């Protein structure tokens, strides 16, 4: 069995990033996963 998620999120390109005073880029979608990685329920797939 499999689960497929399809969702809309802000694009992680240079124009849409808001750079905070610490230099951290914010605003775009960023993945936190790798292909083939084992993952458990509740762990982050990515963040906006």
């Amino acid at each position: 069995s499999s689960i497929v998620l399809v969702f809309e999120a802000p694009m992680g390109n240079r124009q849409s990033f808001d750079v905070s005073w610490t230099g951290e880029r914010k605003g775009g979608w960023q993945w936190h996963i790798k292909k083939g990685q084992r993952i458990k329920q509740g762990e982050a797939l990515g963040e906006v």
Partner: protein
Amino acid sequence: LRAALGKTKIEWYPIPVGLGIAFLGLAQFYKSQQAEKQRMLMEAERGDRPQEVVPRQRVRPTGPWQVQVMSTLPLKLVSRIWGRFNELVLPYPLRVPGFKLYSWIFGVNLDEVDEPDLHVYPNLASFFYRKLKPGVRPLDPNPSALLSPSDGRILQFGMIERGEVEQVKGMTYSLEALLGLGTVSPDSEPVHPTTRPMHKVDDDTDPENLAADQEFAKMNGLSYTLPTLLSGTTKHIADKNGSMDASMESSLTSEEKVKADLAKGEPAWYSPRPTSNRALYYVVIYLAPGDYHRFHSPASWVVESRRHFAGELYSVSPYLQRTLAGLFTLNERVVLLGRWRWGFFSYTPVGATNVGSIKINFDAELRTNSLTTDTAADRQAALAAQRGEPYSGYTEATYGHASKTLGGHALQRGEEMGGFQLG
């Protein structure tokens, strides 16, 4: 001959398990045939014209000989028999060694199982759908994170370009075929001329575009147009007064929490128009036989509708994913469509031969991997053919009655939504 009969040693062997499964399969097939005959007789007695149900045209996949052989098998029937077989009550003394052997083979961590006494599970089906101890799957504390809905392996992820989802490198399938957003022909190609990639952003203040969107929605039986789908319709629930403190949030009901969470995503200058810096992303998670098979909500979102595709039940093993193009668009699946704080959100559990039944906790009417559902789908396909229309491939239900303010069923991040059951 007499000597051969008299001197040959007779050895007894147990009947193979496969033969038992085949017998159960035949019995089930005979039973379903009888039920169908009975139904037609009853309709004839009532005076209704008995309708001959023509089975839907099966999509014959292309691929190596293993795939061709598999496409000739009655996979859904095999899956149902497998389910019945796993519902047989195991003898009490065999339960613990049986489940421990299963756990050893498929890597189940028994320390995480909610019920420590394995005798409690009467059969493999109930052990397979086990619960976990509270707290063993903590949610990521970052509120901006999208959570994994289940245990599993990440097969593929990325951004959707040109309306196509990549199954494995070089093999793609159309998003419309997966979610049913366009009219799907038997060869899984969108045939309607207004079908467009979902992420296309256009200015719907233009009357021509607006008319095309309305026509597209009408043709595809959608209750919303593409721009409203893509923009998310959170404008009317956005909290214009900004964020609320923790004490206020704790006193809210689950629906209000989801509402507040959705509102957080949109700043005060929220515009209902999709902006050019948004895109569609996808991720595919594969659940192995030993994994925890209940699934949870990855974010706070509102489910507006459900589409059930009564397709086939091919295995979704990594081998078949490499060899069978468009596997996820062929298999039986339940597409949940809705919105989250950033717009469109969809959640699609896809069945497989061994795990054919998909359960959604808030949808009591949904029946997957069922003969009744298949017959209903065959009937719909036959009716569509009579009318000369292409068969959409799914049955749809909406959850608008669940909440009038949200227009659907609200789910909190981490909330259990349902699961996969054996057979």
